[in-house]
């Protein structure tokens, strides 16, 4: 238990669902030092334990939940968990994160990670209570909403128990489904479908242990500095007041606000969706994830009900990209997604895609169970969302995402706004070229969190220029990999730099990271390891691309009017900066430089 005084539990729990078996292995110290935690270590566990080429919806796919070294400490935003598995969407590695102190409960039970394999014979719930590991029948919970499931299981296992669960969307196998905890969701990439394929309704964790930092005095000072950095950030202050959607105005002015399935970059009703309008007309309360001083989340009250959110991404997905400015319709869509366990970004994006299919005559109302999906029609949007939620009629196909859907309508792949099958978030790549690169090369598909080069929209660089964008993206990607491995929230980066994070991580772990820049190198190591995972699963440079709308269809309006993304030169430069060859495969020198050669013990995919 050498890691026990370095902020780790020091153990990994392995669970096979059928036949049920559980055992514990120590967490390797060299792995912890080189990959930190969360995303880094879970990616390494996945690489070692996942059979190459495994069916993402079959028994061999590993579903890994875990935490980071700051989980369970008072570090800001540490009440989160990480998830790694193979995505049914991209068929490559998927990492996803959520607020909700499930990682903390797992760690207090004695495990930094739980690696789940197999498929249960019947709908089940995995229960982890310290050393007591059991598989219980899901019973009446199968088919129920995530909030009902969580409330019920907490009533059974105690208030200190934390729950992750899937809703009906994960049960029927929607690739848009995620894993929910406390109305937060590890949303992207279809992890809910993976959990559903294992007939695993929920995982409950409860523990009586704690976390011991390596240098308590140093950690207390690091904590003081981190909290001060967050407190002094005017950007974070505004996000606390007006939610994440306070960014919508800037994105609209930049012409990067995806509108009507990315046919436009500005929305004529954007004014209705600014943060101030939400604050004045809809939100009545701020809420925060466990241990978070930012409190970006908001509560809307209507008819006696308290409804969560929505955040900026959801306002884009059910709002602007569907041509909708009706705030309460977006609130309702967000609520449905939380309850059934759907990724709001992908669900809204696929509805926008269907609206364009209808606009261009690819489908009629008869193909859509009688629904007429006109732009701006919030009733049609909600009706289509209901179809996805229930896996009913056209929802069965929509629930697999835009890439799968476009295969049924030849020609429509040009405007299926996805990469590696994952639907794009709320930034138009034609109006922010670094975002285009990020979408193209991120391991899990179109992602704004694996290195969100939003700095180009915040005055740090010309968003329409491609100059230096690979380097800007590389730096942000490294920071994001470290934050995801510490399992903190990305939003801390609006106040904390790598220096503040380093001032927390070094006293917490005692690792010999000589300066903050060492974390940048660590982040690149993790990104390279994730690249190896995808290479092994057969993903190549050809998968690092964008849809035709971004590459060859000039944007119609706004400051980026006429712009497309000239992607290949940026990819060439990005690979070179990472030490990968022209095919996007890490070279032997690169692996040695990142100390991955020893860590992989010869299991390097070549």
């Amino acid at each position, binding site marked *: 238990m050498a890691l026990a005084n370095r902020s780790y539990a020091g153990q990994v729990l392995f669970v096979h669902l059928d036949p049920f078996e559980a055992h514990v292995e120590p967490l390797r110290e060299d792995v912890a030092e080189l990959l930190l935690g969360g995303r880094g270590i879970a990616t390494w566990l996945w690489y070692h334990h996942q059979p190459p080429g495994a069916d993402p919806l079959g028994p061999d796919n590993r579903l890994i939940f875990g935490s980071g070294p700051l989980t369970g400490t008072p570090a800001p935003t540490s009440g989160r968990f990480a998830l790694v598995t193979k995505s049914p969407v991209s068929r490559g590695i998927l990492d996803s994160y959520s607020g909700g102190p499930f990682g903390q409960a797992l760690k207090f039970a004695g495990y930094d990670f739980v690696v789940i394999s197999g498929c249960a014979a019947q709908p089940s719930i995995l229960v982890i209570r310290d050393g007591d590991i059991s598989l219980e029948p899901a019973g009446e919970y199968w088919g129920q909403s995530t909030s009902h499931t969580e409330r019920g299981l907490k009533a059974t296992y105690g208030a200190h128990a934390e729950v992750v669960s899937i809703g009906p969307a994960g049960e029927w196998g929607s690739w848009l489904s995620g894993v929910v905890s406390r109305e937060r969701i590890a949303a992207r990439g279809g992890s809910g479908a993976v959990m559903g394929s294992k007939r695993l309704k929920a995982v409950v964790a409860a523990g009586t242990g704690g976390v011991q930092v390596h240098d308590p005095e140093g950690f207390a000072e690091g904590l003081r500095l981190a909290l001060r950095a967050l407190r002094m950030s005017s950007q974070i202050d505004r996000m606390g007041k007006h939610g994440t959607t306070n*960014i919508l105005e800037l994105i609209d*002015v*930049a012409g990067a606000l995806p509108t009507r399935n990315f046919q436009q970059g500005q929305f004529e009703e954007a004014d209705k969706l600014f943060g101030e309008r939400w604050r004045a007309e809809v939100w009545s309360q701020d809420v925060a994830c466990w241990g978070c001083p930012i409190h970006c989340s908001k509560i809307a009250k209507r008819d006696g009900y308290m409804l969560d959110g929505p955040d900026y991404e959801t306002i884009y997905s059910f709002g602007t990209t569907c041509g909708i400015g009706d705030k309460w319709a977006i609130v309702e869509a967000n609520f449905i997604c939380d309850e059934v366990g759907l990724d709001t970004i992908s669900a809204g994006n696929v509805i926008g895609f269907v609206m364009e299919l209808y606009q261009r005559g690819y489908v009629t109302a008869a193909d859509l169970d009688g629904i007429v999906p006109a732009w701006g029609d919030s009733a049609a949007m909600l009706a289509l969302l209901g179809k996805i939620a229930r896996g009913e009629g056209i929802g069965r196909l929509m629930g697999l995402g835009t890439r799968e859907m476009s295969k049924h309508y030849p020609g429509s792949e040009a405007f299926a706004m996805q990469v590696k099958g994952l639907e794009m978030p709320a930034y138009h790549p034609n109006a922010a070229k670094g975002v285009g690169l990020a979408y193209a090369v991120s391991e899990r598909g179109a992602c704004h969190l694996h290195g969100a080069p939003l700095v180009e929209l915040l005055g740090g660089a010309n968003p329409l220029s491609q100059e230096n964008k690979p380097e800007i993206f590389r730096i942000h990607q490294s920071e994001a990999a470290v934050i995801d491995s510490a399992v903190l929230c990305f939003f801390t980066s609006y106040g904390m730099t790598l220096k503040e994070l380093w001032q927390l991580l070094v006293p917490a772990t005692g690792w010999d990271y000589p300066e903050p820049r060492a974390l940048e190198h660590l982040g690149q190591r993790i990104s390279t390891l994730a690249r190896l995972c995808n290479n092994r699963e057969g993903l190549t440079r050809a998968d690092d691309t964008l849809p035709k709308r971004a590459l060859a269809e000039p944007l119609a309006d706004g400051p980026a009017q006429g712009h497309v993304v000239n992607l290949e030169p940026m990819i060439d430069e990005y690979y070179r900066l990472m030490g990968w060859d022209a095919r996007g495969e890490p070279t032997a020198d690169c692996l040695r430089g990142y100390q991955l050669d020893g860590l992989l013990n010869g299991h390097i995919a070549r």
Partner: protein
Amino acid sequence: MIEVEVRLGAALRERLNMAGDAGPLRVELAPGATLPDLYAALGIEPAQVALCTVNNRYPPDGYVLQPGDRLRLVSPVAGG
């Protein structure tokens, strides 16, 4: 003198203690004025402006403001 129309983003209005959105400001400037001149007239530090568009386009460096130009100024924000 020339007159330009300026719409300030919400965060910028807040920093300048301007309550609510009273609509675009009309600002008079000397002919030949550039963006730094406009910022000075409004009492804005350049670092407070993350994004500026003129007539829904990004202005080139050294852009000389023209009568009737419509500007949007937005300060750094966080979210996503």
